[in-house]
Every structure is written in C-alpha cells, then in structure tokens.
C-alpha cells in the first residue's frame, strides 16, 4: 500500500510539529501558497512502520551477496557511518569559518594525501560528487588544458575523445557534456584495446582517451604503456576511469601507467554506501600539468592549519561543481575506511578481490559455464556469457538473473559491457567468504539444470519476491510517475 493510501485528512504528528505560538507571518498575500501539498497525513508510527516494511523488500549488502560487476558491492563498515555522523561533524554548517573547522578540514586534507598516494597522481581534489561528475571534471580539465595551449590561444582542432567500445555509458555521455565528439575504439578478442585501430584513430583532432583499467571486461589492459605513448605522441591526454580501482589498490598506480587524470569512485573502492542509488563521491587526481585546472574547493595545510582554497586563489580551476565541498559526509566515510585499512590493508583489498574473482572463474568454468575471456586472468571481476543457453534453451541472461533472486542472491550485472552477448559481469569483492561464493555457484549450477529440465520456472522467475517479474514496457509506455488520489 502506498503511504498516501494510509493517510487521513487532519492527522497531525504533534511531536514533530513546531508550535505556532506567536508566529509572525508577514508574507504578502500574492506570494502565498493557497492549497496544502499532498504530503501524507499519517502518524509517526505509521511512517516508521511503512518505511521499515518497505526496507525489508530490498536486497542489500547487509542482507545478501550482491556480486554486481563494476559496482564493487562490498561491506560498508558501520563505523564509517557512526563516526561520520558524530554531532560535531553532522551539525557543521558549510559556512563555518576555517578556524572552527580544523577537525573536519584535517580529515579532508588527510584524505587528499591518501588518494594521491594510492593513485600515484600529483594532486587530488575531492570536489566531484560521483564517478560521472569526476569524469566531467576530468574531461573539462582536458578541455581547459588544450584551451591553454599555444600561449593561451588554445588548440581548437582537438574535438574528439576516444572511448573503447567496452566503456561504461558515463564515459561517452561525459565527453558529450564537455562538447567533444566520441570516437569508439574496438576491443580485441583477448579483451585488450585494438592497438592498430587506436593508431588509426589518433591524430591532431584527439583531445584524449578515456580508459578503464582493469577494463569493464574484467581484464587488465596489458599494453597500457604503449597506448599512453600513442595518445601522448598525438598530443592527447589520458583519462582513467577509476571505477575498477578496487582490483589494483596499492598494487599498481594509475599515475605510473601514464594517465594524466583519473577519477575514483569512493562508493566502490572506499566502501561508502550505495544508498539505493547514491550518494557517491568521485574525487579526481591529476598529473602535474593538469594541476592548475583542478576543481575547487581543495584543502591546503599551512603551518599546521588547514584552509579551504577556492576559485579566488585558483584562477585556472575549472571551478566548483557543487555549492559546497561535494559529498562531504561521504568523504568522511571514505577517510575512516582508508584509515582502518591502512597501507597494507589497501593492498590486501586488491589481492583478495582478485583471488575471489579468479576462484569463481575457475569453478564456473569447470562447471561448464562459458567464460568470455577464458585465456585471461580475471581481475576483481569476470564475465560469463550465457549465449549458448539463450540459443539452445531459450533461457537468457535476464532469466538467470531473476532466478538467482529466488535463490537468495542478487544478480550480477547483466548485459554490460554491451559487446559481450548475454553476459553476466560477476564481481564478488574481497569481503565475501569462500562459503558464500560456493553457495552462489551452486545456485548457478542448479539454475542451469532447471534451464535444461524445466525452463519455465527460470523464464518466469522470480517466484518468491514481493512481486513477480515486472512489466517494464508498460511502465515506459503508460507513464505513471506520480500517484493521484482516485
């Protein structure tokens, strides 16, 4: 039942309603609202009960294995939540003078330093509020860089951004937002970028390339140094999509691969919560030549005092991307997590995430599932393709995905990357136990058997969730986005 259907006109939560004694209201008539908005008139208990029960209808990391490839669904330590919400931090107004904000600013500064270290970049800004905004900041910096060339006259010919066909959708979308044309680069059959195609594609029109390494195919781009050389030689810059940083944390630094700019998804690698869609945090790191363009605000240290620097003192900055300091509370969570991991712990993240993925790959392969890149090492994730099942049994990836829900597992990422047909991108993360991985794989094998013997049960799954399979076509055709009373 919707919350509105539980309401009754005139029901008031007095404990939550400021008393209007002696209220002065001098708002002129023409500015006033005339009718009450449709907010539910329910009691506090009704609200608590309704949303508590709704919450129970979700799968989440706290309740289920959630091997969603590219999303790094690992344990979100509860300490990060609790400590980032300490009253002194939770109540701090963003306009509080620096003098009264040294505790908060110290955390931001320390986090910048930590991220510099793990990325091998020259400088970091914490400003962007998610991966896609980090990408925006990065590509905007690439634009700013080219615009500053030739003694400030710019390099207007550089109108293209190269993007491998395996890239996440945010990469081309970001290039467009920065007014670049997108040129797709194909992938070899072994999952690496097609070097010949790249060579053919670069030129004086190349502003840069956006790469994810490890790529979204779950493999490490081995020719990264060669790629960097090709793009740099053509005058382009290299952008690193850090969504997969979990795979190499502390093991390899993007800065060492030759990247000029990177974003990180702290809500992936640094385990801040996904919150059913967000928030995230997408700090950017840059090489020395892009440093002047970093988005503000940033935090600097000066004789033991921390200060916020803004566009005022950073005139070449691409500027601010949010009203204040990005998703500050999320940055705090990432900082707390980073400190708990420490230098050794970070490397272990990459190691065990990789171990888990390669273990699953090996078992899945032995169990008869087709691996997309069987000759490659998995990084922290790998791809199974169910194209044979789809063709021979009429049971496709979506069917497997939905049926997994019945078995108590969230589905891996489906139908991404787009270039692998009927794919499942599986990312177990380092925080899952071998037992859990084994249970998941047993479920996959059981579903495979079902697909062979009673495919209907798979094709009409799920059967044990709050709803059965939903009609997405109807949703898009007969748009119902807002509840109307009768």
């Amino acid at each position, binding site marked *: 039942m919707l919350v509105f259907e539980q309401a009754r006109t005139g029901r008031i*939560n007095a404990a939550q309603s400021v008393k209007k004694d002696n209220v002065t209201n001098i708002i002129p008539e023409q500015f006033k609202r005339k009718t009450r908005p449709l907010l539910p008139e329910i009691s506090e208990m009704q609200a608590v009960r309704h*949303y508590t029960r709704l919450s129970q209808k*979700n799968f989440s990391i706290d309740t289920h294995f959630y091997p969603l490839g590219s999303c790094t669904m690992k344990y979100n330590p509860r300490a990060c939540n609790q400590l980032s919400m300490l*009253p*002194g*931090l939770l109540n701090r107004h963003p306009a509080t003078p620096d003098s009264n904000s040294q505790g908060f600013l110290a955390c931001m500064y320390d986090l910048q330093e930590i991220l510099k270290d793990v990325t091998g970049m020259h400088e970091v800004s914490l400003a962007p509020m998610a991966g896609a905004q980090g990408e925006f900041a990065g590509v905007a910096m690439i634009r700013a860089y080219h615009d500053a060339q030739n003694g400030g006259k710019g390099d207007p010919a550089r109108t293209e951004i190269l993007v491998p066909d395996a890239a996440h959708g*945010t990469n081309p979308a970001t290039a467009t937002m920065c007014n670049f044309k997108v040129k797709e680069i194909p992938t070899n059959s072994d999952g690496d970028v097609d070097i010949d195609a790249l060579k053919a594609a670069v030129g004086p029109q190349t502003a840069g390339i956006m790469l994810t390494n490890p790529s979204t195919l779950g493999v490490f781009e081995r020719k990264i140094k060669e790629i960097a050389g090709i793009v740099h030689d053509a005058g382009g810059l290299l952008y690193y999509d850090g969504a997969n940083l979990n795979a190499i944390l502390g093991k390899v630094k993007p800065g060492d691969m030759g990247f000029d700019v990177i974003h990180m998804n702290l809500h992936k690698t640094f385990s801040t919560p996904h919150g059913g869609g967000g928030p995230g945090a997408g700090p950017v790191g840059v090489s020395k030549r892009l440093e002047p363009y970093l988005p503000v605000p940033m935090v600097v240290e000066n004789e033991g005092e921390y200060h916020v620097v803004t566009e005022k003192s950073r005139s070449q900055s691409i500027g601010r991307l949010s009203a204040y300091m990005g998703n500050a509370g999320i940055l705090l969570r990432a900082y707390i997590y980073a400190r708990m991991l420490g230098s050794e712990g970070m490397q272990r993240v990459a190691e065990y995430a990789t171990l888990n993925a390669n273990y699953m790959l090996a078992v899945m392969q032995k169990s008869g599932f087709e691996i997309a890149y069987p000759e490659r090492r998995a990084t922290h994730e790998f791809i199974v393709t169910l194209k044979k099942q789809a063709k021979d049994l009429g049971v496709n990836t979506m069917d497997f995905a939905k049926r997994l829900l019945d078995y108590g597992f969230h589905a891996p990422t489906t139908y*991404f990357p787009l270039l692998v047909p009927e794919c499942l991108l599986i990312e177990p993360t380092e925080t899952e136990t071998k037992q859990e991985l084994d249970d998941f794989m047993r479920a996959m094998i059981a579903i495979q058997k079902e697909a062979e013997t009673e495919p209907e049960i798979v094709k009409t799954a799920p059967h044990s969730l709050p709803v059965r399979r939903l009609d997405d076509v109807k949703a898009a055709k007969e748009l119902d*986005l807002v509840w109307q009373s009768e």
Partner: protein
Amino acid sequence: MPFIPHTEEEVKSMLEVIGVDSIEDLFDEIPAALRSEGLTKVPEGLTEMEIGRIMRARADQDTYRLCFAGGGAYEHHVPAAVWEITTRGEFYSAYTPYQAEASQGTLQLLYEYQTMMASLTAMDVSNASLYDGASALAEAVLMAVRANRKSKSKRILMPRTVNPAYRKVAHNIVHNQGIVLEELDYDVNSGVIDINSLPDELGDFTALVIPQPNYFGSLEEVDALTDWAHQHKALVIAVVNPMSLAMLKPPGEWGGVDSDVVGADITCGEGQPLGIPLSSGGPYFGFMCCRQAYVRQMPGRIIGRTVDLDGKQGFSLTLQAREQHIRRSKATSNICTNQGLLVTAATIYMAIVGPYGLENTAAQSHSNTQLLMSELEQLNGVQRIFNSANFHEAVFKFDLPLDDVIRSLAAQGIVAGIRLEDDYPELGNCLMVCATETKSEDDIKSFVQTLKTTLTRLQAAACPVQPKMA
C-alpha cells in the same frame, strides 16, 4: 585482516582450484615495471577503536553553540526516526535498483518521493534526484536548451539573486557546450529583480531562471517574471527552497496573469532542508520537476508504477532510454549514481512531518527571522539593507569591519552568518543571517546580545582613546 574473511586454509584451497601458487601470481598480467613499490603516505591500519578516538577528537574540535548561517544550507530539526530508518542496512547498503523485483522497497519509496515533490512544487512530474541544488540548476539549464525548440539562442537569463555558488556551478558545467548565462542585476533597494529591468528588446533567450526566495531571502515577483518569460518564448526555470513551498506559491502555479501559460517549466533546487543534516555541505540532494511534456528531456532516474506477471502493482526504473547506460553519448546527462539515500531520508521526513509539520516549520522559521531582524535593527552600527518581503533570511550591513565581527563571534561559538562581499563586491561588510525553527527566542536574544557586546568591544578597540566626557 580488516574486512577480509579468508582463512589461510581457504586461501590455499582457492589457489589450488585456480592452479596458481600464490595470490601474487594472479597479478602476472600486469607489466612488472608498473607494479608499485607500496604506499608511502598511507599510514598503518587502525582498529575501529583507534579511528574512533581520532574522529571523536576531531568532531569535538568543530562543535559550536549556535549557527545563524543559511545561504542554501539550513539547520532544521530532523526527527530521530528519519535517520534511524534511513540507515537501516536494506536502504543504506543497496545499489541502484536495477533488479526491480529485489528493490521494491527503494523503488516504491522513490515513487512516493516523486509524488510528494510534484505536489510540493505543483509540477507534473519529478525525477529521483540529482547531486545537489547547484548542479541541478546546471542540469536544468541543459534541459531547457534541449526542451525549448522555439529558441536556438543557448542564452539563459540568470539573475544575480540566484545563489552565487549555483551560478558558478551552472556556468562551469554548461559553458563547455557554448551555453551563455547572462547576468541580470537586482534592484539595490529591494534586493529583488526589477521587472522593468528585463531586457525586452534584447530578444531570444532560452530560459529565465527565477529564484524564490532568492539568495538574499527576498521574495521575487514570480508571477510577473514567469509571464514575461513565457511571453518571450523563454522557458522558466524555478529555483526554490522546498521548505519555503509550505508557505509560498509553488512554481507550478506561477504566472498565468498576463500569459496563457501557467507555471514554471522546470523546477529545481536543493533538497537539504527536508531532513538532511548540515554535514559540512553534503551529501545533500538536488531535486528536479517539470511539465509532463518535457519528461523525456529530464536527466536522472525516474521511477514508474507498473504491474507484475500477476497484474500486481510494482515499481521499476523507467524511461531508461534517456540515460547514459542505454543512450551513451546521446543521453540527457552523464549522471549515474545520484543521491538516493538522501532522498530516502527526505521522503521519510516529509511523511513524518506531513503537510502541517512542514507548514509550521516554515512559518516558525519565517517568524524567528522576523524576530531576529527586529532585534538586530535595534543595534547601533547595523542596518538592514533590502526592504522587500522575505522568507527566512535577511541582509545587514555593519559599520565595523565584518571579518572582525565574524571571527570574534566564532571564537565565542557562534557562526554569525554569511559574508556577502566575495560574491557581491557591492555588498561590502554585509552579513546574511537566518533563524530557523531550531532557534528559541533565547537563542536569538543571546546571539544579539553577544553581537552587541562584541560590537561595543570592537568599537572600543577601534577608538582606544575615549573622549573624556562623551
């Protein structure tokens, strides 16, 4: 190992299955030259107890007593239930609801949120959030350019009474696409846009941005502005404080006096006042609503109600063809991760306070600010500078150097307000203050009293030699 459950035995058996000798071997495709030497600036790991000690010390350091700053981030009471439910693992640690059947909790909540926001703004539809108010304005501008087929100008009229940070963010994002934000000045006496100053002859604009209340807390002539825009074939982008909408005419009802078209075309703003803690400026959430006709131009997630195989009601992400994961370089925006958890909190907040609670909160904030204003007006050396009606913020000009005042109050545990000079050079020595419902009469009087004493002291310090018989 922090957060890694593997036992030695398990690792051994897993490596055996893979067929390698060590975990290190799994990194053998990475060129050796690239392998890093380790981390040098990352300190050793801490236990939860140890980091707790550090964080508590830092948090204690930043505690203050009273805050009268607003400027886009407002201290409101948040019912305890809001965050106790929002941080339940099932909301907190879920991903974007791609698998709808396993995400009905989040999806139904978002559908309810869309309904609440649409009603609050009196717009047809709402999306499921953008990053924050500032970037929501940027997206609104981009959307207006896509949506307004009648204009090719890529010029947007942007009043200076819009939050300066929002204007900067909007510029930083949209200028890449050659979109120009043309500034529109305000009337110095009223602090609002003078209708007569609108550039009647200047021709083609894609959209007019209208803030309500504006950055100074003052109330714009939204009806006249809306009609002006629609007469000039420009779209109206409303930037509003959702809390104020409990008292103020919603954007969906603006105008229609001198024009057939009623209402703003796109409404956006900062959702923070709806149950989101100040938290140093984030995470908050941007909201966006629009006319039904423009829904396919809207950025961000949108949830639709549909049915399952049995015809039972259910919810799912819809109109995904607008989004980057489907449309890629042709998407309405690059946004992917949004601010779902904050929307969760805001939805629960609105459900708990309901229409009366929201109205009372807004009214008390308005009233408290009136009290603060009348108290401040009685101080020597402090003058209110705009004479327009306002919601819950007001601007005061100080005779003494404002920075000294702010610094001195901060040392006494009071965040005095927002200094405007950086963003408005013409408003030197001007402080913007805000008193929401969280301030008691005593709080307000204590602030004014402290300010008075401080001013007297600073005054005395400024003229150390007192005339003998003054």
